[in-house]
């Protein structure tokens, strides 16, 4: 019996190697499919946008007859998206930061309230943005607001809030207890420990969280569909409607005129570029944060 196993593993071993080889090939193929989808998406956007990519695209607002293919650009949507997203992120940050500090300073991590708050944030994170759009619209009607920069900002802030809070929360929770104990033993109270030691320690992580939320807000279309409206002009007041890049792409793509469709592609290229930029910054930051991790 002994010799049966040890002396002649030949054919069995070859079969095992074949199985290994086949699955390895399948895994490599899958990884290629994933990478290829990204390349296809980026290449098709760049390729299609080339004919419409002119400087005037990003320096001018739509002129008269723009939607029939005449002159103009999408400056309104670029500026609008930035106004809306920056505003929304600021609102979300103003709520998330105190909430997260409180969560990690005064509540024990296993306490009922802390669990309930984290659960609520998970629930909020799971809600699709179209539902936020609907909710925002209902709230807007309740306060007799029109579709406007303000309404859009609030709705997008709600979309970003759980992302921002949970990512910040997870970062802060990773701070070793020893660090806090050191601060306590120097006479700092909980508030001082959190604000002067912990937050300083995790600052890059907080910036990462803000950038992730920013990227998410910038690209979200469903939540602003009913709440932000759309305009061809630059928005100068919180109560005016505002144009956004995702919606600019969406509307122009539905146009029957090929020139306008091409501009949708160009707008998409601009949006993608912005997102890429944010994600690049995020990556370099988080690498600084955890230099020894691969992920």
């Amino acid at each position, binding site marked *: *019996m*002994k010799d*049966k*196993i*040890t002396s002649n*593993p030949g054919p*069995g*071993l070859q079969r*095992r190697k074949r199985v290994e080889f086949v699955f390895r090939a399948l895994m490599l193929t899958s990884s290629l499919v994933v990478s290829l989808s990204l390349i296809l998406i980026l290449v098709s956007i760049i390729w299609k946008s080339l004919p419409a990519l002119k400087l005037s695209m990003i320096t001018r607002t739509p002129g008269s007859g723009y939607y029939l293919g005449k002159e103009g650009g999408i400056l309104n949507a670029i500026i609008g998206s930035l106004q809306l997203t920056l505003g929304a992120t600021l609102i979300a940050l103003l709520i998330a930061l105190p909430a997260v500090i409180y969560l990690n300073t005064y509540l024990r991590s296993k306490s009922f309230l802390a669990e309930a708050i984290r659960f609520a944030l998970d629930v909020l994170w799971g809600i699709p943005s179209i539902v936020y759009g609907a909710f925002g619209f209902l709230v807007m009607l309740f306060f007799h607001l029109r579709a406007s920069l303000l309404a859009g900002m609030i709705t997008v802030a709600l979309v970003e809030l759980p992302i921002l809070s949970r990512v910040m929360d997870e970062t802060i929770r990773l701070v070793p207890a020893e660090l806090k104990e050191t601060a306590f033993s120097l006479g700092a109270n909980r508030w001082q420990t959190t604000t002067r030691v912990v937050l300083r320690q995790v600052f890059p992580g907080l910036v990462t969280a803000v950038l992730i939320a920013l990227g998410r807000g910038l690209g979200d279309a469903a939540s602003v569909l009913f709440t932000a409206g759309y305009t061809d002009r630059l928005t100068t007041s919180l109560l005016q409607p505002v144009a956004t890049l995702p919606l600019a792409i969406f509307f122009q793509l539905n146009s029957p005129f090929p020139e306008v469709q091409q501009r949708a592609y160009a707008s998409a290229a601009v949006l993608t570029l912005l997102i890429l930029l944010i994600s690049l910054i995020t990556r370099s930051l988080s690498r600084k944060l955890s230099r020894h991790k691969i992920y």
Partner: protein
Amino acid sequence: MESRGRLSLKNLNVYYGKNHVLKNVNLEIPEKKITVIIGPSGCGKTTLLKCLNRLLDEGEEARVEGQIIVDGQDIYAPEIDVTLIRKKMGLLSQKPQVLPMSIYDNVAFGPRLFGLKHRPQLDQLVEKYLKLAGLWDEVKDRLHEPASRLSIGQQQRLCLARGLAVEPEIILGDEPTSALDPQSSRNVEQQLLRLKQDYTIVLVTHILRQARRLADYVAFLYLGELVEFGPASEIFSNPKDPRTMAYITGEIS
């Protein structure tokens, strides 16, 4: 079976990136004896052990130079199949690592990989090796329970049985008692002393007293260098190198 289980290391060098972790180690490990590798932590003991069954291949960054010869074959030669090398050696790790399956399946895992499917034969095998590891009486009525339910000392003996079931010639132990309570430790040590009749055993330990209890031969590693190797009695009573002397008297640790 007589000449099996001899290990020799020739000009072995290991690098992690720029770190030179093992420096030109030459070592003849005698068969059917317990050879204990001692040395302060970070001296390359575990690395040396992992070289022996090519587990270092699995990490990305390690580079191995030199030869390790088992029964006349260089295990780093390109035509050698790594699974067969590993099958020649059973490994006991610091913490017992039971596979996520039943006690029975843990022991049968290796033989099944190599094509043994016949149930009565497997039954025999499982019983034989559980007995050899001194665990049979404790588990014979619950062979199909998850192995994770065993106590940690029992788990380590299960790992021993599992390693023996692939019929190795060599047993490698990486501080195999460090996670165990004193009672279980002694139990594992007793099994090892019994097993050296049939197997070559290479143990890494940082417990000097354990080395004294078990070792036939002792190798002292310091900062990646093999400082001294010889019969245990000589090393412990009459070390030639001042560094060995310093280590066994507790001046460096």
